[in-house]
Every structure is written in structure tokens, then in C-alpha cells.
């Protein structure tokens, strides 16, 4: 049996919900790296959806490249004037719902109870100390918390994460100018902008 056959078999098992977690991860990685396998996955999803609901909600579900292409290199801000910000309605409900949505996944909650800052645990308001992470990272928003979410939803989420990173690089200086004056140490916002410059230099290499 070739590797491609194994991937195809794993794909079938994945569609049938018979995949173990480790195999699931491997299958998803294989799908992501193989356009043919991804096309087959898409067709199987469509067939499965048709069988289950007798309708196609979204025939073209492989949207990640389309999103990236559409949203990349868009420096211009709004062409539509007079946006407004309303007062939040039903805030209590929204906060509760939001709080539930941003609960870290089980995978992320197993960080070791140490800090790498100054060689000591940083005490913060009675909270349990956890791994001090000063690196950039993605955040688990609703669409990407579960490996069981459809691949298309996770691809859209990944595209929006990349977009968020691009928007940070594009808009951070503008934000920093506004935010610095409310901070006890306004110069930290200058420092933040250097990280962006350094990151851009790295990307350009």
C-alpha cells in the first residue's frame, strides 16, 4: 500500500468518523499539503452533506486561498464614510457568551507552572502562575478551537489570523499614537513599533 493509498483510506475513515486523534491530526496535515486529496475531501464532504440534508449549503468550501488573495495587500482604509459605534446592547449576555468562546482549549491549558522572566514566577493578583509567554501567538477564537470543526471553517479562521497579523503591522503605529498617552510609560509604544520594523525586515529577507 502506497502512502497515497494510506492517505485515501485515512480520508475515508475520517469521513466516517472512525479516526483516532493521532490519525486525525496526520490526516488533516496530509489533506492540507495535497491539493488532490483536498479536492477529494471537498467532494466527499459535498456528497456527505447531500446525503444528510439533500442540499448543498456551500459548494466551494476551500476558501482559504481566496480569502488570502482578496484581503492581502489592502492598505487603504474605509471608502465608506460615516461609520458609527453604537452602545453595546445586551452586554451581559454578550460578555458571558464571549467568555465561553475564548476559553483556551485543553491542549493549551497544560502549560507548565513556571515563568522564564527573571528566573522567577511573576506573582499576579492571586492568579495561578503559568508559563510566561512573551512571544507572538494566535488566539483561539470560536472557529478554530476544535479540531472537529470543518476544515473550511478552520481555513477561514487561519486566513483571518494572517489578516490580523497584517493589520497589526499596518495599523499598529496609528494605534500606538493614540494609546501611548494613557499608559504610565508612553515610550513602551515606541518600543512596540520597532518590533514591527524588525519583523518586516525579517520577512523581506
Amino acid at each position: 500500500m502506497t502512502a497515497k493509498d494510506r492517505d485515501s483510506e485515512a480520508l475515508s475513515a475520517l469521513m466516517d468518523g472512525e479516526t483516532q486523534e493521532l490519525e486525525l491530526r496526520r490526516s488533516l496535515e496530509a489533506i492540507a499539503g495535497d491539493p488532490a486529496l483536498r479536492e477529494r475531501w471537498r467532494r466527499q464532504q459535498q456528497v456527505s452533506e447531500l446525503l444528510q440534508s439533500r442540499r448543498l449549503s456551500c459548494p466551494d468550501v476551500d476558501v482559504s486561498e481566496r480569502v488570502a488573495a482578496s484581503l492581502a495587500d489592502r492598505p487603504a482604509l474605509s471608502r465608506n464614510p460615516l461609520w458609527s459605534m453604537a452602545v453595546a446592547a445586551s452586554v451581559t449576555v454578550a460578555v458571558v457568551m464571549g467568555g465561553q468562546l475564548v476559553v483556551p482549549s485543553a491542549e493549551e491549558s497544560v502549560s507548565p507552572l513556571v515563568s522564564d522572566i527573571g528566573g522567577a514566577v511573576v506573582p499576579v493578583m492571586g492568579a495561578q502562575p503559568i508559563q510566561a509567554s512573551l512571544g507572538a501567538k494566535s488566539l483561539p477564537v470560536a472557529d478554530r478551537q476544535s479540531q472537529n470543526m470543518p476544515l473550511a471553517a478552520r481555513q477561514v479562521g487561519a486566513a483571518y489570523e494572517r489578516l490580523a497579523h497584517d493589520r497589526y503591522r499596518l495599523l499598529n503605529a496609528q494605534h500606538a499614537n493614540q494609546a501611548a498617552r494613557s499608559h504610565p510609560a508612553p515610550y513602551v509604544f515606541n518600543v512596540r513599533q520597532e518590533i514591527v520594523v524588525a519583523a518586516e525586515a525579517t520577512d523581506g529577507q
Partner: protein
Amino acid sequence: MREFSIQRLRHSLSVLPFVLLLSTAAYATDCEITSPAAEALRKVLSAPQGLRFEGTVLSERAGSRQFIVVSWPDAAGQGTMRRMNAAANPPLEKWPAPFTSAGRICDVLNVYSPSLGKGRIVAGRATQQLSLKPKDPLRLAYLVDLDAQTGMALAMVTAGSDGQVLERYEYADITFSEVGDRGATTLEAEPYSRGRIVVPGYFLVTEDPGKGIFVVSDGLATASVFVEPLPAGAPAGEGAVIEGATLTYTRGVASPKGRLLISVLGEVPVVTARLLADVVRPPRGGE
């Protein structure tokens, strides 16, 4: 008698919106600073007014460790800094004076609970430790080591709601000059524009609806909201990344009323960014 009551009711209703506006604006500058912790916060927020200093700061965030030399103030009433990690002859950079509005502390006390603890030695100086714990899940937490003598923040940690350190800075050394040594250092109270509250505790600081740019603050944390049209063909979705304490959240909204791309940048949790994105409204009549 009945007609009179209705007239009074109508009058009351016509006045009500103004009353609400006034009360919203009034509470922010009307608070009592009674506890030692609140007094410590007042000192932190009013620094560096009345001070003159020069020092070296270690700043850590997003995998980066920077040493910078800062001083305050220059002849124009601004701060200056040089990055010591940079190549030879790092350029002189300016940093702005913080807001010194007296009402700002009331905004901060409205949404954070301050507590004061025993400090440590920072840059060879005695400090007190001020914890700013958020009263709701809409903001980050701060741990400040303030100079026991001047009240200036000599070290500060920004932490997420789970206690995770997002970024920090700390003075390695600092020298204060006597006020008046080289001219006056007391700034005029800098008012900050305080608009309507859009999300609990967060009020509009500036807005440019024509460009789709809004800035909100709770007196300490700030978030900027940028609104653009969502490109044709792009599906709705959301994503977020965090660099140090700065969150960037993007949301694409596709509805009959319009297609928006909303970006929120700020030192805020995801839940706050989501709420801020929720309150963005398209122009009347859609796109």
C-alpha cells in the same frame, strides 16, 4: 391637574437625554480618593508631571528584549529615548506626555480594583507594589512597582486574565533631578476627550467616522477600531493574534446591510475586541 402632569412629564422627557448625557460625563470626574491604593494610583497616573529624570529601561514583549535610555522632559515638554539594542548612533525618538486630566483616575477606579502591597528594590530605589485588578473580564491586569518617593512607575507587568505575563518593563537605573533644576516640569492639566461609553467602562476618545476609525479607552487601556469594506468574495470570519499585550482582532461581516472588515487593535482581551466589533454600525442605507 391631569393636563399639568402630562405637560410636566413631556418636559421631563425632553430634558432626560441631556440629563443622561450630563450624568455620564459627570461621574467620571466625581470620585473620592480615600484609600492608600487609590492615592498610589493617582501618583502613577499623574507622573511624570513635576518630575525630571533620566534612566535605562528594560522592556520585554513578544520575544523581544530591548534596552532603552529615556529622559523627561525636553525643551518642548516631551520625552526622549534611544534604543540601545540598535546599531551605532541610535536616533533620538520622542514620546508624548501622558494625559494628566484629573478625571482620568476616576475612570480607572471605576473599572479596576487597586490594592497596595510591600514593594521591592527597583533600580536601587524603594517601591510599593500596586495591583490593578479588573472588575470585569473586559480588561487586562497590571502590576506596578511605583517609586516610594515620587510615585512614578519604575516597573510594570501587564497580564492576561489567566495571570499570564504578556509584557513588562523595568528600570535598571534612574536618576531624578530636583524639580526646577533646569526649568519648570509641571505640565498644564492635559484634558482628554471623553465621549460616550460604547462598551462597559470604555468610552470614545476620538472618532473619525469618515475614515472609519474609532479609539476607545477605559482611562488606562486603549483600543483602536478600524472599519473598511470587506472585499468581494471574502467570506465572513474572525481571527486574532497577540503580540505582547497588543491584541489584533479582525472580523469580516457579510450581511444585507453591508460587508465590513473590522480590525480592533488594543491592550484588551479578545472578549472586549469582540464587543467593540459588535457595536460598529454601517452607514445609513448600507454601503
